[in-house]
């Protein structure tokens, strides 16, 4: 049964986040959240804090949210536009931050250790900022993280409300991969992680070469290839190619970018190195939704049966081969696909996981005296109807003309008073 509480439909929510559907990062998570907010009846927009962002100018980078008119550039944004809530994802202009009339929640996307090391090595002092402002930003009503494994780290820094939810994904965004492309003679491995510290496929590239060599020698009855998305042929630093044994170059393919669904559909096993805390990146969530088997390079990755510390490259390679062997049986393979998708839907479905976030929003709306009710604004703020005023208004009209009384009560007021509403009610009741 549906036990969801009704939401304050029509509330406006601004998400400050850079628009980057192509280069991934925070944007896809924010986009999914905005789409879910729109679905349940909130009015939500993304405000791109990158001025004149080229990705907004390029039609090839326009996603559905952009085309729906829900992405506004900061250079075009009118900062006097009121809103019921501001969500801070990557950057918020100072003027917005200082406006105490606005309600604020901050989303903590990054891995706490990355934030620390960035600051340690001279990048943005985010942690210091967080430590200093907690307690002094009275209109920041909540800090939200989508990663339960980050909780103990943030709890050392955030003193106020820290809401921890589960990772999110729209289960309709990726469909189950078909089984018709499977070829037991070709093992097509794929890597899709974003290239940044610790997630570049260094260990993976080392691990797969043993298999490739054995395959070339005929010791394995299938060809092994590694397809690496995220960096194209033209911009891969030369040092990466030094990792590749002579003669194996043709089995490594640096592919740049492609549609994730197409990638999952046309490859066999997704490999991922995983950071020091094995959180499920977007690639992993999307991969699970597609059903593609995943071999994780961290022994504590809960979301796959195939995992091994990738720094032990031979052991990691053995795990890949174990997964491939399991896939030889058609029934078992299809069961793996289905089981992965079921896992993704049960763990990450945004329709479920966004509910605590919306409950947080609703608490803020209910609490805030500064909220402008937009759904069905009513001056029903507790102030009593002035019945005496109404009686006087009617008594002073000899003819008892209700319609005229309505006009007089309305006067030049833009907003309808409750007294005017009462008179309109009397006018309409006989017609109803």
């Amino acid at each position, binding site marked *: *049964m*549906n*036990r*969801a*509480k*009704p*939401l*304050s*439909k*029509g509330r406006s929510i601004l998400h400050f986040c850079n628009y980057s559907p192509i280069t991934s990062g925070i944007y896809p998570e924010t986009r999914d959240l905005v789409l879910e907010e*729109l*679905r349940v*009846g909130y*009015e939500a*927009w993304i405000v791109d804090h990158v001025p004149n962002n080229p990705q907004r100018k390029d039609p090839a980078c326009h996603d559905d949210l952009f*085309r*729906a*008119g829900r992405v*506004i*550039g900061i250079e*075009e*944004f*009118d900062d006097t*536009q009121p809103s019921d809530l501001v969500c801070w994802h990557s950057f918020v202009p100072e003027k917005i931050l200082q406006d105490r009339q606005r309600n604020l929640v901050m989303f903590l996307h990054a891995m706490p250790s990355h934030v620390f090391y960035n600051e340690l090595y001279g990048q943005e002092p985010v942690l210091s900022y967080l430590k200093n402002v907690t307690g002094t930003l009275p209109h920041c009503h909540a800090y939200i993280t989508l990663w339960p494994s980050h909780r103990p780290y943030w709890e050392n820094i955030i003193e106020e409300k820290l809401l921890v939810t589960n990772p999110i994904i729209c289960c*309709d965004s990726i469909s189950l991969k078909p089984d018709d492309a499977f070829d037991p003679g070709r093992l097509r491995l794929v890597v899709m992680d974003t290239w940044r510290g610790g997630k570049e496929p260094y260990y993976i590239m080392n691990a797969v070469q043993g298999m490739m060599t054995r395959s070339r020698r005929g010791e394995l009855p299938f060809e092994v290839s590694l397809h690496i998305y995220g960096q194209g042929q033209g911009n891969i630093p030369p040092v990466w190619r030094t990792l590749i044994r002579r003669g194996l170059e043709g089995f490594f393919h640096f592919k740049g970018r492609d549609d994730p669904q197409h990638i999952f559909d046309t490859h066999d096993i997704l490999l991922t190195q995983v950071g020091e805390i094995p959180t499920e990146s977007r690639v992993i969530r999307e991969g699970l939704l597609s059903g593609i088997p995943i071999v994780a390079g961290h022994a504590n990755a809960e979301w796959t049966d195939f995992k091994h510390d990738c720094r032990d490259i031979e052991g990691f390679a053995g795990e890949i081969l174990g997964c491939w062997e399991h896939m030889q049986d058609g029934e078992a393979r299809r069961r793996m696909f289905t089981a992965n998708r079921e896992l993704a839907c049960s763990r990450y479905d945004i329709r479920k996981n966004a509910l605590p976030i919306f409950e947080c929003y609703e608490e803020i709306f209910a609490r805030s005296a500064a909220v402008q009710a*937009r*759904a*069905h*604004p*009513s*001056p*029903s703020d*507790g102030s*009593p*109807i002035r*019945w005496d005023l*109404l*009686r006087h208004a*009617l*008594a002073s*009209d*000899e*003819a*008892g003309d*209700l319609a005229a009384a309505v006009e007089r009560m309305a006067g030049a007021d*833009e*907003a*309808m008073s*409750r007294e005017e*509403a*009462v008179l*309109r*009610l*009397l*006018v*309409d*009741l*006989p*017609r*109803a």
Partner: protein
Amino acid sequence: MNILIIQVLRMGDALQLLPLVQGIKEVFPQSRVSILTSTLGASVFENQPGVDEMFVLRKEALVKCVRDGKRETTISALHILEQDLGPVLSVEWDWIINFGYTFSSALLSYLLQARHRSGYSVTGRRQFLAKEAWFAHFLASFVLRQYSIFNWVDVNRKMIGLPRVPAPPVTHPQPDALSRARAFLQNAGLEERKLIGLHPGASGDHKRWPLEGFARLCRELKRREECGLLIFGGPGEKELGMRLRGLVGDGIQDLTGETTLEDLKAYLSLCTLLVTNDTGPMHLAAGVGARVLGLFFSTHFAETGPYGPGHLVIHPTLPCFPCQGTGACGHRRCLESVPPDIVRDVVLNALGIQPHDRMRMDHDAEAGVRVLMSGYDPWGYLEWAPVDRSALTLLDVEKLLLKTSWLAYTENGNMPEAPVEKSYLLSRLGAFGPPGDKEALRAGVLEMIRRLQEQRAMMEKACLGSLEIQSLCLKPGGEAARIKALGQDLEKLEGEMSLVDKDSAPAFVHELLCMMRENLERKDTLGLSTATIGVYRGMMRFSDLMIKRSRDMLDLLSHGA
């Protein structure tokens, strides 16, 4: 949670609400469910298990005072309003649900304090609207009634997000009323008979089957020893009941004006069948689990028919059906077009006395009738299927397409798989007889596709226009003249879109678009343009769903029908 339901319409509307009230209580069992209703409505909700508290607005008294038009009586009306609304105003409601569609119900919602509101309301800027898409569909059906598809119960439950409502019975007679009813029937020697209730009255003469029709039916039925006949009606229909009894003679019990609502409930719960015009007691009968045969002349059974499976309706197949009592046709042939022998056959079949294959139907195109039975479709919505294998028409096909497309649009990915929908369409098409002119039907569907495509292209143009307005709004400092010019272009385009044949599915799509646009809150130009874009995109998606399904339908018609 404190929930308030506003329902201050007529008694029939209140009765139709009963499954919804029960449904809300089932989903929110810990909540306190209250109703703000009129005096007539109070008799419906009193003793109703799902209702924790009732607030009565003496609407009838208020209307009387206001209509009087004098200053003193208007002030009296104000006094009544203050007294009746006082207790409701003092509560801070968590959720107010307005199931009405009148300005007064919207104003009531506005006046009360609430965290959340569903249904029709009014903004502080005096704009009457409802944000729910299902409400827009409901309003579109008001305008183009021949395209009514969903029962009002289903529309309202989807509006507030209820997955389902309880199956009948949703209301039960009080034990003492039931005892009284049984005692009466025993005294009348009817306790072993199949009881057939008859309700010859209705709130307007455009809804009333001629009394002679009822009389002929009763004269035939009373010859059947297994049948017992009861006439029902309110105090204002006593004369009608007496006339009917006079026409029928002995062998029929006239209870018009003799029953309270509780008594009526009790009798109806003992009836095997109620034969009735479109009335409040029709919904009461459905609510207590009695079977109904509804006679519909100027109102649409899809919208206000009895809610639940196994009910029957008969309606004329005139081109002007349903007129909602406007009488625009000038002839009122609908009332004369339902032959009593057809009603008799349907009644006897419903009682199990006459097998189905002996049902005779007149399929004359000018003044034929259709007989339909209610059931639930695979998605839980009430629907009506012909039991008489009447010929499939373009309107039938259009309504099937509008329905499945609307469900796909609103369910947003939660629809059952495509094979379920295809199997459903095949079974629905199979319930009809072959079309009179198969080629004309195909041509009609092709023409509809062509018009839908044209319409969609115009929507896309309007969407791009709105997007341009939005972009200009976001730039501080102006271009007001350009925004105004674009707004005028948009109005002109919308004018062109409205030039669509009124009796067509694209006309319904256009009406839906208009209703969605009208229900956008007119705040700042930026917000409005953004919301407008959303509506156009949504309706383009709906058009795409219609076009695809229409093409699939052509295949089904070729191979399946």
